[in-house]
């Protein structure tokens, strides 16, 4: 694990569904401990990109190129192999945090089962859980609650705690803060910053909210119609060279310039 090779390295990724190219990304890298933003309007290909990374594309999708994660090409990994990478090494924090927890399981049970699933021995689980709870500043008593008894922010912390407990190397934050109110948003953003510092976790922050991502990410990629149209540090916002970026900065989507539908 040399510092030179990025943790996640996407090259010439193309995803075709039904003969239409929906994603055509020449290059996207996430280094260890780096926070990278992927910003675009709805339908730009953000979700598809995540699905490709996680290996959950629809079965009729055709792919080319490579998605290398720690030296292994995820596009060519077996279903079984992907299952061990997904969740354990690449964790996902979803927008609807409460809906992402199984309603019939207490939060603590949910985490414990996930740890057991990924072969964390029983005697180690308690210590990992303690550490994770401290890292996300979650009261241990909340673990006895069912999802509907948690607030959105608490539920989000539970998902993040699981990522910490599993020692995920990369966290895919899918609009992870969009459903939260502003103060909780700031808390979760701060949490991401701390995790990165304390655990060395890498983040790929996927969002339509440029302002939020700009405040966190080291590098930002603007995606539009399946292509990355602009990349750079947060300073790209000051001098947008692309109209999509300019529109995102102005926080309004561009009017379709042609009659061609976005998807």
């Amino acid at each position, binding site marked *: 694990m040399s510092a030179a090779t990025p943790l996640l390295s996407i090259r010439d990724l193309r995803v075709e569904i039904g003969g239409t190219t929906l994603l055509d990304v020449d290059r996207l890298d996430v280094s260890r401990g780096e926070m990278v933003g992927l910003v675009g309007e709805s339908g730009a290909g953000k979700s598809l990109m995540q699905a490709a990374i*996680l290996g*959950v594309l629809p079965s009729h999708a055709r792919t080319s190129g490579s998605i290398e994660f720690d030296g292994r090409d995820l596009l060519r990994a077996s279903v079984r192999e992907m*299952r061990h990478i997904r*969740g354990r090494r690449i964790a*996902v924090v979803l927008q609807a945090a409460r*809906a992402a927890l199984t309603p019939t399981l207490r939060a603590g049970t949910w985490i414990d089962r996930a740890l057991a699933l990924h072969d964390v021995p029983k005697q180690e689980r308690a210590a990992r859980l303690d550490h994770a709870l401290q890292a996300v500043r979650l009261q241990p008593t909340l673990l006895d609650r069912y999802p*509907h008894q948690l607030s959105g922010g608490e539920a989000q912390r539970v998902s993040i705690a699981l990522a910490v407990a599993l020692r995920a190397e990369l966290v895919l934050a899918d609009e992870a803060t969009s459903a939260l109110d502003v103060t909780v948003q700031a808390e979760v953003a701060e949490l991401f910053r701390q995790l990165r510092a304390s655990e060395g976790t890498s983040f790929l922050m996927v969002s339509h909210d440029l302002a939020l991502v700009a405040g966190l990410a080291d590098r930002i990629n603007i995606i539009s119609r399946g292509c990355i149209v602009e990349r750079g540090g947060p300073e790209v916002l000051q001098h947008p060279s692309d109209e999509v970026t300019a529109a995102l900065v102005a926080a309004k989507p561009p009017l379709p310039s042609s009659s061609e539908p976005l998807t």
Partner: protein
Amino acid sequence: MTTAETTPQVGATGPGSRLRSALRYVRDHPGLVVAGAIIAFIVGGALLAPFIAPYPDDAGTATNMLATLLPPNDEHLFGTDHAGRDVWSRVLFGAWMSVGTSLLVILASLAVGVPIGLFSGAVGGWLDDILMRVVDIFLAFPSLLLALAIGAALGPSLQNAAIAIVIAWWPWYARLMRGEAASIRRRGFVESGHLLGIAPWRVTVRHILPNASGPVIVQASLDLGGVILTLAGLSFLGLGAIDPTPEWGLMVQQGRALIQTHPWVVLVPGAAIMLAALAFTLLGEGLRERLDPKGATRR
């Protein structure tokens, strides 16, 4: 499920508050309490019949032609039937015949219907289509009629009647389970389960099934009353239990002609059927409230 909220908290409770919380439970769930009492009575009767029935032989082949159609008296609490058999003894033994058989029928129907429905709903696609069309074919016939036809084909016996009802009944659970599973399959926690690297079968069994089973459990409990009635109905029509089996429906059928002159022969097993059906319906309604996951915290 969650026993924590039904048992009083240990520590801060004295005998007074324990009684109070029990009373509050009765006030909040009158249906469940009544259902529980009746069911306890029926189950107790079914299990203890050989010990508490005053004339255990009357549930079998015994006859007593010198004491036919006696009205209720000191020796025969609910009188005797046309063969001089003690009605109370037969009703007690009949609890196992009627309720026990119905319970087995429901369990067998669940055992067939739930896995099929769960699989169908969780997998989706063309397999789902095929399975559900098969279910539709079964559902196209009214279940009593279907049970009647199958019962007639198999020949009259309590066991055949039970098999006939299972064949007519399982598609309802398959359909119900399939609908629940199919809607839950699209929920966030199933997606996050897959994203956590959980194998699909495990997501189905550990995450979809528990969240989909509430309505099925409720329906099964409500149906138990219906199955008791159907089983009694088949026996009444001569397609179920045969004499001298002390099955409640059969007892009603045998006393049918005597209802105006010797009503106890019909009324006692009839009341037993009604009470049992009522109790399981109340239980189902009570469970419906309890099993709603969002209701788990309600005090």
